């Protein structure tokens, strides 16, 4: 395409935006509402996801070592655990440390046991993929000198299935929202195109190619998407700024969970909103103009 034509398309699309004032307003409003919903949703989903990831990361495999194992056997076991496929990291906690933990939790009385420590030495291991903890734990259990392997059996399966379900529900909801938005926008743009059917018909009769006719409409859809993204981006950025600064510290205090950092996260969400606006607009125009090109 020649530069002159590109310029013409560019001007045409802008002209059309201002000429179809009310239709532009309607389309932009539809985009705005949808993107706002999607944006808020993504914001919540991503943070819930972060919580889920944090919870997952806390899942440990506790490998209790046989009392009979000597130092060499313990070192060998550590190597064996490290070499088990799917293990990310291993930490050793001798029985003295284990007792100290109990003392911290249950009181000084337990110091009595320092003379004759009844506890086992322990390894704490983490799976590369937390969802595979159970399988990895089983492999570790088969190694020599393991007395018992614990990984919160039963509980973590429930946790994981709960987290997976909520992730899927969130994804489905976002997709449904996006679909609705595209439908709304392609319909609104269709109305502006119907008003210009005659233009399209004449363009076709004088020998304009389909792309020549399509491009101004697609550009127009893009502008609608960009215009529709302005308010959601502004609102969501301000909203998250406040949540992060006001609510964030309180949540972190309770050790419940930490919010995603403001800086890269919210700009990523903003970029996503803009991208979705543009895609929705372009796709909507493309679908609507298609019907009118069969002259």
């Amino acid at each position: 395409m020649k530069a002159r034509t590109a310029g013409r398309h560019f001007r045409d699309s802008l002209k059309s935006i201002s000429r179809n004032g009310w239709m532009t307003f309607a389309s932009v409003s539809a985009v705005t509402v949808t993107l706002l919903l999607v944006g808020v949703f993504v914001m919540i989903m991503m943070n819930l996801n972060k919580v889920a990831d944090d919870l997952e990361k806390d899942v440990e495999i506790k490998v209790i070592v046989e009392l009979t194992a000597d130092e060499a056997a313990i070192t060998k076991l550590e190597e064996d655990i490290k070499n088990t496929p799917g293990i990310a990291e291993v930490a050793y906690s001798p029985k003295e440390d284990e007792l100290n933990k109990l003392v911290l939790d249950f009181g000084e009385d337990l110091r009595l046991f320092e003379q004759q420590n009844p506890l086992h030495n322990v390894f704490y291991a983490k799976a590369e993929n937390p969802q595979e903890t159970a399988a990895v734990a089983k492999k570790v259990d088969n190694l020599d000198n393991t007395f018992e392997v614990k990984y919160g059996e039963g509980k973590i399966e429930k946790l994981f299935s709960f987290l997976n379900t909520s992730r899927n529900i969130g994804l489905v909801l976002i997709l449904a929202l996006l679909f609705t938005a595209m439908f709304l926008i392609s319909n609104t743009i269709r109305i502006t195109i119907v008003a210009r059917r005659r233009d399209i018909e004449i363009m076709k009769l004088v020998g304009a190619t389909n792309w020549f006719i399509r491009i101004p409409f697609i550009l127009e859809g893009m502008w609608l998407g960009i215009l529709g993204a302005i308010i959601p981006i502004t609102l969501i950025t301000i909203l998250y700024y406040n949540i992060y600064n006001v609510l964030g510290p309180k949540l972190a205090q309770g050790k419940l969970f930490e919010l995603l950092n403001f800086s890269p996260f919210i700009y990523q969400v903003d970029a996503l909103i803009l991208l979705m606006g543009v895609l929705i607009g372009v796709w909507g125009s493309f679908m609507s103009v298609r019907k009118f090109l069969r002259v």
Partner: protein
Amino acid sequence: MIEMVNVYKKYPNGIVAANGIDVEIKQGEFVYVVGPSGAGKSTFIKMMYREERPTSGDILINGVNLATLKNSKVPYLRRQIGVVFQDFKLLPRLNVYENVAFALEVIEETPKVIRKKVMDVLELVGLKHKARMFPTELSGGEQQRVSIARSIVNTPKLVIADEPTGNLDPDTSWEIMNIFEEINSRGTTIIMATHNREIVNTLRHRVIAVEGGLITRDVYGGDYGYES
């Protein structure tokens, strides 16, 4: 230039608008297409600029077969054909100059060439002084002249007109016919569907009568032929 071989057209609703048409039209001819309404006249015309595709048979224009022409190639066919309609089909928000220039803009001509060609053609149809006016400010005859100017600005070898005088009073119709005569005298083929008996009987040219999807008469210098 144009050759139709055994052209058959059946619409999805079952109507057969062309039932085996064979015809040849040479470069530079002036052809009237006459016939009662609903006889297949419009379909005959529309198939020539590929608004309709024949169900079977071949339509050759300068060696290109329209029956098998890909949709993506249609724009390039249309650039070689000027089309004029009964209802003018002008863009109301563009002025006369812009309406004519439009046909050149969509084929990406340079502004310099566009200006020259548009002014030349407006001169030919006698509307140079009204170049800045909008279609709504013009009479029907003037609007039709703009539409003719647009159809020929790209110097096509073939101009197809579908009842170009259908909406015009007799005097204005004669003005329009003079322009077509002028274009034809420069070597452009003209194919015109019309119901205007007086014009056909006065400006004698080849007459093709279409009835029931068939060519029932094809006479050089013939008359309109239907009783009023």
